[in-house]
């Protein structure tokens, strides 16, 4: 487990925790636990983290937004971009609640990327 790109300014603490899992059912899985507020200031850290995860060419990348309290469209654009370029890597999000799931729904992201209410559910489905 490692932390990348902690950023503490007006946003308080923003960080992305990276976890590599080796799962029988799903194969190599990288889970990115995002903590804090995703906006223009912090989005480059998110992008860098997802880019690094995909560079390892895992079987699956999960971006867990459970602890994200604000998600601007710049963040959603990054998620959409990586989903489109995911290739053979499966791409899943964990999101629920007004701060993340609602904007993902309103922008149609929820129609194109698989979103699970909890990380366990994202990891459970084959």
């Amino acid at each position, binding site marked *: 487990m490692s932390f990348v790109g902690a950023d503490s300014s007006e946003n308080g603490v923003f960080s992305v925790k990276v976890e590599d899992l080796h799962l029988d059912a799903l194969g190599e899985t990288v889970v990115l636990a995002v903590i804090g*507020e995703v906006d223009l200031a912090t989005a480059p850290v998110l992008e860098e983290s997802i880019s690094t995860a995909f560079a390892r060419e895992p079987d699956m990348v999960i971006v867990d937004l459970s602890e994200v309290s*604000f998600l601007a*469209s710049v963040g959603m654009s990054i998620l959409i*971009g990586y989903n489109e370029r995911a290739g053979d890597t499966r791409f899943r999000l964990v999101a629920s609640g*007004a701060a993340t799931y609602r904007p993902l729904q309103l922008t149609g992201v929820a129609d194109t990327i698989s979103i699970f209410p909890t990380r366990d559910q994202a990891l459970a489905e084959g």
Partner: protein
Amino acid sequence: MNAGQQQLDDVQDGDLHFRVPASAARLTALRHALTEWAQECGLAAEDREALTLASYEAMANSVEHAYADHVEGVLDLRAVRDDARGQVTVTVTDYGTWKPPPINPGSRGRGLPLIRGLTKTAVITPTEHGTTVTMTWPAALD
């Protein structure tokens, strides 16, 4: 925290007016100030989040597009409570050039749909001097 509150005009007690350089770094503090203001107005949690996100998107739009050619611009953020009508209004004004969204925005361009989805009414007024986005939410004001 000084996010740039200024007494530029006749700001009514309980209203907000910030004029700041249109740069991404300034928007986080403005957003937090808006959330606090919405809380003081007594908005429900869901409306507070909608107001904060939609206003942020409008400001981000100004930062990213309006001043692409000349970076020295400012933006005005105003938040006004209208007790008589039972609503709150947020306006974001920049003095750059309005860029209509591209027909195929690709992975970008989700700001405006998001603003529309999060507001009761959202009006975008481009003029030759700049662009104003006016957004309202119903509010059971004290």
